[in-house]
């Protein structure tokens, strides 16, 4: 073994002269259980290039990133080539892979807390990658960490989320690697922090290090990437220079993704365009184009064979057999549903919170989350509660629905059925061992609805959110992410509440699913005449759903007013900061 290593090591070191930082050829990856994560991917990352790998969950983007680093689990079946700086990470031995990673690669993952060693000082960890504490200091400085000397002696838990991610980035760029894979590095961060980290990535670009930036967010990709590669169903749908792909998408999926996105073009009171159907099932991939089932341009040819990735111009390639016919005239995705008109204005309140204070802990450890807050929600209206994480949004929401009691002040909901909550993580809000039907009957049973009526009510409500009856027999884990979201919504509106509170219901969702959920919320609130309290840090979502915005900061509402007014002419610093941090898609155009 030792001799093998000695022979190999120089190879690994000199291989860096290869032309590309990463070259992926016909890569197939299958996991046990028949999940085909990648189904023939070609991808090249040139020296110093930043490539945005965009796709929805299940598209294979993360797996592709791991394959480039040679970090796939041993049980995965891999064929094809994934050459990192000229070293094929598929065929190489573990030792070569390890060496290649050490010399040529860096990685940044979504959650820095799980990637950093909690028992080791930051300095030691970075020095492990950098070689010395001096080098570590330089790196931390380069990663934009203020006062790097002091940070060296701190532990990861003493740093904020943004600083931790900067530490991860510092470790990733140690030794000027050929390739850094960043997998959703800003998804777990606040908008304001996300903006700073994206800025850092732009600063770090240089001639020697290339970045593969994995993200589900087109706006984030636009901020950092030279080139965008769109993945769908484990294959590349479209690749090309960022501006070209986003301004003139040629693949119907790219176009759909762009139009389903919330943005300034989204009009309040009108449903968003959505993709029909469900994302492809990686266990049973289609014989032809994976997107065919949801595509407006579908023809017989689409289902016959896998579309090849054709190079259409020097930098641009598209995998669509109908490319010639579609040309530049991709059908714009349109909204398929219609909403009833909004309920008439009423001054009656669905929620009234007065001088509400809530703190957690006792004595010195006591932390006040909400500090003398006033908030009203009129019947049939929607109020968006926005603010940075830690400002007390969620606590306010929990008090509004009665899950927490205020220490001081009062919370009153209007007459009618008790308020309900749509959780951020719909899957986690379903009791794992109970069937969906069982879970949905529960509120009816508790309200004293007779058994016969319960079943039909459950069926009706499932139909209302567009789910078949059969879902009632499944458990949460057997459903797709989209189905779980719908079930969670159906359960909340089973007995139409006076107030529907939503806790970041779309922040963890893919673009196309987020549009579906927002549409459902919009339609249901109108049909059932519910008031909504919508907690979010996403101003685009707030603009789309709400009549009024309440901006929270440090436990109080610092600004409130009609949505358009607040966003057009923010009166407080907190609002201005939030607005400035949004990676604005339209503004960048």
């Amino acid at each position, binding site marked *: 073994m030792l001799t093998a290593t000695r022979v190999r090591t120089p190879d690994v070191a000199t291989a860096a002269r290869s032309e590309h930082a990463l070259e992926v050829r016909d890569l197939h990856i299958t996991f046990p*259980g*028949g999940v085909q994560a990648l189904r023939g991917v070609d991808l090249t990352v040139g020296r110093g290039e930043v490539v945005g790998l965009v796709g929805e969950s299940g598209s294979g983007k993360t797996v592709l990133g791991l394959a480039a680093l040679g970090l796939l689990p041993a049980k995965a079946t891999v064929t094809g080539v994934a050459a990192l700086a000229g070293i094929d990470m598929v065929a190489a031995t573990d030792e070569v892979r390890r060496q290649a990673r050490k010399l040529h690669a860096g990685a940044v993952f979504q959650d820095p807390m799980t990637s950093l060693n909690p028992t080791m000082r930051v300095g030691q960890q970075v020095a492990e990658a950098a070689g010395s504490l001096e080098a570590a200091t330089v790196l931390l400085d380069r990663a934009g960490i203020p006062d790097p000397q002091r940070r060296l002696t701190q532990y990861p838990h003493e740093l904020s989320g943004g600083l931790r991610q900067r530490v991860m980035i510092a470790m990733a760029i140690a030794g000027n690697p050929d390739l850094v894979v960043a997998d959703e590095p800003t998804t777990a961060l606040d908008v304001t922090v996300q903006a700073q980290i994206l800025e850092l990535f732009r600063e770090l670009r240089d001639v020697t290090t290339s970045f593969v930036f994995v993200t589900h967010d087109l706006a984030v990709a636009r901020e950092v990437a030279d080139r965008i590669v769109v993945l769908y169903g484990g294959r590349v749908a479209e690749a090309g220079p960022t501006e070209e792909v986003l301004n003139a998408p040629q693949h119907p999926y790219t176009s759909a993704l762009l139009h389903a996105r919330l943005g300034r073009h989204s009009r309040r009171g009108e449903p968003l365009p959505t993709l029909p*159907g*469900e994302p492809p*099932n990686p*266990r*049973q991939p289609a014989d032809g184009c994976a997107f065919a*089932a949801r595509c407006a341009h579908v023809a017989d040819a689409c289902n016959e064979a896998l579309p090849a990735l054709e190079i259409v111009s020097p930098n641009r390639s598209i995998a669509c057999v109908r490319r010639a016919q579609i040309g530049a005239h991709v059908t714009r995705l349109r909204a398929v549903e219609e909403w009833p008109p909004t309920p008439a204005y009423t001054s009656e309140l669905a929620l009234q919170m007065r001088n509400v204070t809530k703190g957690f802990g006792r004595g010195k450890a006591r932390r006040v989350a909400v500090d003398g807050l006033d908030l009203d929600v009129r019947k049939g209206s929607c109020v968006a509660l926005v603010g940075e994480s830690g400002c007390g949004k969620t606590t306010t929401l*929990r008090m509004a*629905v*009665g*899950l927490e009691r205020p220490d001081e002040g009062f919370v009153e909901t209007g007459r009618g059925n*008790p*308020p*309900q*909550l749509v*959780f*951020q*993580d719909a899957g*986690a*809000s*379903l*009791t*794992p*061992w*109970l069937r969906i039907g069982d879970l949905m009957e*529960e*509120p009816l049973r*508790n*309200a004293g609805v007779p058994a016969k009526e319960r079943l039909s009510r459950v069926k009706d409500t499932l139909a209302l959110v*567009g*789910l*078949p009856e*059969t*879902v009632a*027999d*499944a458990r949460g*884990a*057997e*459903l*797709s992410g989209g*189905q779980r979201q719908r079930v*969670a919504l159906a*359960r*909340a509106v089973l007995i139409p509440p006076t107030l529907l509170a939503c806790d970041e219901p779309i922040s963890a969702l893919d673009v196309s699913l987020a549009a579906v959920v927002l549409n459902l919320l919009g339609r249901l609130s109108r049909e059932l005449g519910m008031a909504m309290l919508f907690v979010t840090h996403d101003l685009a979502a707030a603009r789309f759903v709400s009549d009024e915005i309440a901006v929270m900061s440090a436990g109080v509402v610092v600004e409130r007013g009609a949505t358009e007014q607040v966003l057009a002419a923010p009166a407080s610093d907190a609002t201005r900061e939030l607005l400035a941090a949004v990676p604005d898609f339209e503004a960048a155009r």
Partner: protein
Amino acid sequence: MAVADPVVLGAVAERPARVRRRLRMGAWELGGLVVLVLVSLIAIFAPLLAPHSTTQPVSAGPFAAPGHGSLLGTDDLGRDLLSRTLYGIRSTWLSALAVVGSGIVIGSIVGTVAAMVGGFVDTVLMRVTDLFLALPGPVLAIVAVVALGPSLPHTLLAVAVVWWPWYARIVRGEVRALLARPHVDAARLAGTSRFALARRHLLPGAVPAVLVTGSLDIGNLVLTLSGLSFLGLGAPPPTPELGAMTANGLTYLFGQPWVALVPACAVFVLAFAANLAGDGVRDLLDAV
């Protein structure tokens, strides 16, 4: 129905995976489970399986070696060892199950109440639990036997009193972790009562942890109960008990070793199989 597909596919694809997980359990653990099932059957059907009375001498006479008119031989009073061992397994096994069962019931109630109510009640219940945890089981058993007279129920009572606190702690921990999950909030918003919340949304989540501990505990209990019986703290003679039979046979260990070894081996097999099976149950539940 394109929408329904993932449900169906999910269920179908899960089946082979589960089968494989089951096979992944080691051969030893699987063997332990098989022995456990056999032991349970023996415990239930001992009256039917035993060829002779447990208290009356058989025709082979005292100290008959195994095979000579009696399959496993006879003891000093000419009683059939096979029959006595089968009954001994029955009493030890059922006693162990009873203690674990009572521990799970009492522990689940105390642990759930402590976790759900919290605050002062939690503190009091947990300190009481600690108090019981501090009592030494064998000593308590001696006290119980001295105070109440020698009988199996008295011994079991004493053991059960020191056994439940473990389950109370496990259930409390599991329930506290589950309470932080959104599904509990969702159930609360559905208007579910506290009792139904515990029964439907919390306790089922604690089942795996309790089951693993319980199955590993049975081996411990077999040893503890046999040990107490060995010391004369079980049912009074002539009731067949594995510990007491071994103790009785010690006198003849060098002349007629089978008298002591047959019940002793039964204890060994029971404890060993229970431990292996416990590991097997843990593997099974970990994988799911």
